């Protein structure tokens, strides 16, 4: 094999029990990232689509698609927060493991990102109620 990058044998633990643990750890390692992805994605969704749909809402004369959007993006945010919270709880249980610290941190930051995203969605949603959907659109 053209071993250009010289990728060799894995050096992680080899005996059976440790292998299972390593695989489990790998899976667990992904959950805290969910908060990192879902929070920002939910907020981007809400802002981007919400912004783009305003002229359309004005034509439509109703806000319900916007309410729906808010519900969906809030839900996405909650999924991320839930996953992060889950990972955070679990990281508290794994006492002996050295990677406890970084798992905790990843989960914590993920959770806070979701909280920030939720705040963002909430203030955007709240602010929009002061304005009619057609304000500033001249026909």
């Amino acid at each position, binding site marked *: 094999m*053209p071993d*250009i990058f010289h990728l060799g044998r894995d050096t992680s633990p080899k005996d059976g029990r440790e292998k299972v643990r390593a695989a489990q750890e790998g899976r667990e390692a992904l959950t805290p990232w969910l908060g990192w992805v879902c929070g920002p994605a939910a907020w981007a969704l809400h*802002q981007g689509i919400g912004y783009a749909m*305003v002229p359309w809402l004005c034509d439509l004369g109703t806000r319900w698609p916007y309410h729906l959007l808010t519900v969906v993006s809030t839900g996405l945010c909650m999924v991320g927060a839930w996953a992060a919270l889950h990972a955070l709880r679990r990281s508290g249980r794994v006492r002996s493991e050295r990677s406890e610290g970084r798992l905790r941190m990843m989960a914590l930051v993920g959770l806070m990102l979701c909280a920030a995203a939720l705040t963002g969605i909430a203030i955007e949603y709240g602010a929009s109620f002061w304005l009619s*959907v057609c304000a500033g659109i001249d026909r």
Partner: protein
Amino acid sequence: MTDATAPDGTRGRGAGGARGHGAEPEGLPDYVRGGRDGLGEAELAELERTWQSPPGFLAWFTHVNHTNIGRRFIITSLVFFALAGLLALAMRLQLAQPLNDVLGPEAYNQVMTVHGTAMMFLFAIPAMEGAAIYLAPLMVGARDMAFPRLNAFGYYVYLIGGTVFFLSLPFGLAPDAGWFNYVPLSSKEFSAGYGIDVWTTMITFIEVSALTAAVELIVTILKLRAPGMSLDRMPIFVWAVLVMSFMILFAMPSVIVASALLMMDRLVDTAFFDAALGGSPLLWQHLFWFFGHPEVYIILVPALGIVTSIVVTFTRRSVFGYAALVLAIVGIGMVSFGLWVHHMYTTGLPLMGRSFFMAASAMIAIPSGVQVYCWIATMWGARVRFATPMLFVLGFFAIFIAGGLTGVMVASVPFDRQVHDSYFVVAHFHYVLVGGSVFPLLAGLYYWFPKATGRMMSERAGRWSCGLVFVGFNLAFFPMHQLGLEGMPRRVYTYLPETGWTLLNQLATAGSAILALGFAITLANAALSLRRGAPAGDDPWDGPTLEWATTSPPLNCNFARQAVVQSGNPVWDRRRAEVSAHVGGLRTDRRETIVTTVLDARPHAVQVLPGPTPWPFVSALVASAAFLGLIFTPWAYVLGFFAAFVTFVLWFWPRRPWRED
């Protein structure tokens, strides 16, 4: 030695072995070796020869080591900073008197556009990239970047693009539509000459260069960290660089699209931005600012990393609220992508649409506030050493916070509609840009200069410089707030005496002269200290991160032996510990660095990095010729594509490392 350090099973001429004094550190994995000087003299000499950048003028074009490339990025960006600064002085001179005639209207527009564009694209971003390229591999304890040749390619593209851009000025071919180059002003109809094409081409250069830097930095940070440096032990600066790189990755494509569409409008008569033919001028603004707003945070985020590094070292404390700081940096990165429409409040967008961005713009204050509190808490009750780097950091606090306050003001729609396109905005963005990039960069210069050169900069000159820059800056830019409120528009080449703006403009001009003097002192200080500065030693500031664990200037191979990290402050640990842990078993006869896992930094492979080569330079030349040709003919694209392809083939010709095994 164990084979954990040479995962492919090669041992041969490895430099490994437990040769150190002291016992094996207990409870550590088996790739770890104890001892301070496990590497023999002959082995170190061979390692240094392997990693050497060959001397000589022609060989200069073959260098790929990250220390060489990073240094070049920084020096080049400082040269562009000086040039763009001279242009700023020319503008201030012109505005010192009403109806002055230092610069005519055409010249003023060109000077203003080149100043703004160069400061943003040729100074601020590349300077941060350069600092990241120089420091990040050292801080994570790697031997080099993940893709050294790509790194070199990115530098040459930047160098050529920047040089051509500045040369456009003496040839009278400079762009003059401002740094955000709005259509329809920049369309063929209203800007017929080559100026705008020079602008779009230069943007392409910088995009390519920034994207290459971003990709390498991400891979280096995620995969080449020293064993044991799990993500929660990574220096905050490295986190900041990681976030900056992802931001470049997400933001740059937008301006690539914008400038490509404009190029096509101008070159082959498409009509993306031509309202008369169904195009949309607002599309330009959206595309540009979707890049342009994150851009200012691309500059700011690594600066926050620099500031944190300095605060930690000069308080001799671990940073307070590590997770909160990481959250703040990631949060700033995230929120910065949702603000772009605040640059377009006066374009007649629906009010409810604007409200989204007003809300989001106010939100950026949350992560920024978290960050400021973390710094304050770190310094609280500590015995802070007020050396020059720390003084510049204090200057950053004052100025950046002032800029942040006016930022919250202009983020609100009704206020912005009053001051949009006035000098208030000029004052605001210089407070954030100079406060948020120049002050941290100067702080970083004083802080890391000893590491990069082995010599200290003069402390006395540093204090003078810091004082003058601080006073000069405020004198130059504070009056502009008032000028803006009095109605002076930005981008005017002169004004009438009856306006009553003369005195404040004179203050601003005097301030910019003081500011220039302050910069000149630092420049002279750096130049003189290179030869005459006091020898610095490895770790003059008692810093905690790995760049202080090697010699000053760093070895060709960065570290005689790659460290194994056991906390967030490895160098402080090392001082306390009897023995320090190292990676053993890497070969000395070729460029090897250890590859680790993303989260935990467990070693799992060894990467062989490429050595010096001229191909990135040749590729950059060919690609540049193609970009420049695009100013004149669309056929340059076709030709350039194939020519560049040929050079890439030669560049990627397999190296066959397995042959020597």
